């Protein structure tokens, strides 16, 4: 395991996260807030990255994002728990359990069918939430301040640091997984499934595991978003546009590295803020053009751009 920590990528990531956490002491509130949203989304995109490397793209991860978010909210309104660790644990558990169950179905599909089925599932949840008045329907309901072992912080900064820490831990765990044997199967499956089967591994099982990992991450991300936003509602958490945003960030960031999702998510957040201010009627134009641009000119995403600039020598990242 120590060789993981010696890896250059991991060192840089650790540094980046530390810098981010420290920066929260000096950066203005609104930037910290945007960063929080970015980190939360980045975590969900990390999960999609694992799937994307396998050759699968889910158009319905809003399902787990939403499950995580609503779990946090319901935990408070029904059981009164507002503790940070319990909230995240619950969000991850619920999302992972549902992911495990649905994984049995989804693991048999590929490509467009996988995408469409995941979309359909997420829209079913949306429909349920939108018409359940006890859950506030489309208005949703609010989530109060997160407490840490009983201490109620005055502002969102401790939450930000905690999210940064969690994200970092998740990144390390995913990196460890990707270095493991099962993890290395990821790209193998994308390239040629039948050969992987001949090697003796069960592709279906491998995909199932990756799916559960991605859903757990998305659930955690949704929980964090709920805590950062202070409000949950189906349109912000489950609707297909949420899944679409995550897919967009995944493509924009590229599958090159576990750090890419966070960079992509943060860029997306700020792109959105400024694009909206400058050109409220052209927001979709900007997103669409960026998407096309990435697909045509930078298929490896922004990360591949960074790699080129860094002069990628001795790359062992897949």
């Amino acid at each position, binding site marked *: 395991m120590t060789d993981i920590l010696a890896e250059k990528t991991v060192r840089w990531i650790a540094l980046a996260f530390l810098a981010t956490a420290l920066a929260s002491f000096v950066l203005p509130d609104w930037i910290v807030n945007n960063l929080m949203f970015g980190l939360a989304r980045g975590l969900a995109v990390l999960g999609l990255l694992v799937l994307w490397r396998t050759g699968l793209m889910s158009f319905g991860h809003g399902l787990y994002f939403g499950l995580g978010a609503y779990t946090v909210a319901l935990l408070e309104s029904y059981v009164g728990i507002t503790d940070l660790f319990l909230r995240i644990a619950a969000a991850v558990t619920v999302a992972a359990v549902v992911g495990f169950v649905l994984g049995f179905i989804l693991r048999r599909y590929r490509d467009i069918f996988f995408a469409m089925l995941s979309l359909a599932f997420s829209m079913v949840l949306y429909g349920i939430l939108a018409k359940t008045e006890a859950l506030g329907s489309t208005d949703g309901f609010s989530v109060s301040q997160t407490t840490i072992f009983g201490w109620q912080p005055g502002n969102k900064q401790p939450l930000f640091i905690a999210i940064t820490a969690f994200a970092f831990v998740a990144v390390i765990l995913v990196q460890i997984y990707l270095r493991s044997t099962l993890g290395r199967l990821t790209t193998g499956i994308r390239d040629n499934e039948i050969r992987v089967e001949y090697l003796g591994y069960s592709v279906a099982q491998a995909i199932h595991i990756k799916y559960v990992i991605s859903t757990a991450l998305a659930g955690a991300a949704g929980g964090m978003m709920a805590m950062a936003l202070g409000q949950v509602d189906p349109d912000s958490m489950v609707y297909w546009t949420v899944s679409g945003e995550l897919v967009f960030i995944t493509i924009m960031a590229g599958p090159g590295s576990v750090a890419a999702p966070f960079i992509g998510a943060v860029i997306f957040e700020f792109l959105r803020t400024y694009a909206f201010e400058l050109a409220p009627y052209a927001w*979709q134009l900007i997103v669409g053009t960026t998407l096309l641009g990435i697909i045509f000119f930078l298929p490896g995403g922004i990360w591949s751009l960074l790699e080129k600039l860094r002069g990628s020598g001795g790359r062992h990242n897949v």
Partner: protein
Amino acid sequence: MDTAFTILLDGLTYASYLFIVSAGLTIIFGVMKILNVAHGSFYAWGAYCSAYFVGQFAEMGLPDWTGFFAIAGSAILVGAVLGLLIERVILRRMYDQEEILIVLATFGIFLILEDVILLVFGVNPYFAYQPMAYLGSIELGGITRDVYSLTLFALAVVIAVMCWWGLNKTRWGLLLVAVIHDKEASMAMGINVQAVSVATFVIGATLGALGGAYIAPTVSVAPGFAVDVIVLGFAVVVIGGMGSIPGALIGSVLVGLLRALTVHKMPELELFVIFIVMSVVLMFRPEGLFAPAKARKI
């Protein structure tokens, strides 16, 4: 008995609307293996052009029925112009890419065209009710219906027949079927797959535009008009089988009738009945109910 008849008519009307929307989508997928999100753009642009021209004709004092020409004209205009534009500029470069990436590219195109609509047509809605008003109403099954929606049904039938005839009885149709089955073999046989693809895309685009153009007189055409339609179209295409016209037909009728039944008997379920059907079909017959058979390739 009146109720059953009403439900049937409602279901078929809605099915017609779905079919016109999804026919183009399924053709394009069949030939080019592209799930074209920008189909929503054809729909929206068709609707805006149609609404605009119907409005113009009305302002010029022309009689209401000229609106129909505006509708047909808009569909062809949008189909040809947008279809060719998109195919030439974007899709031609993407044929080797992964399916998912192509879908995302079409999504990007859709977003761009949505904002272009805002720039060209503005934020305010357009009304084009003249053709619908012209046809008036009729009593059927104990309630009053608008004749216009019945013509929608007629239009769907015409399109379905034309597709069937085109695919089975013309040489061009046979070429299309061949390409759908196996692109490489078709190329090996000397079929100009490129031309077939372009032609198919334009036809699909025109059908999508026709859907929007024909619907325009019944609604207020405003920004955001097409967003829902894409998801509905996808659902129908998935249910019926991607690439199959009879599949799109059956899928539309199934969803249309089911929805009509739900709205009449259990309105609260309306919101996600279509997605449940889509999920069920995907789980038990992922190729759809009528997909063309595909041999597994190693």
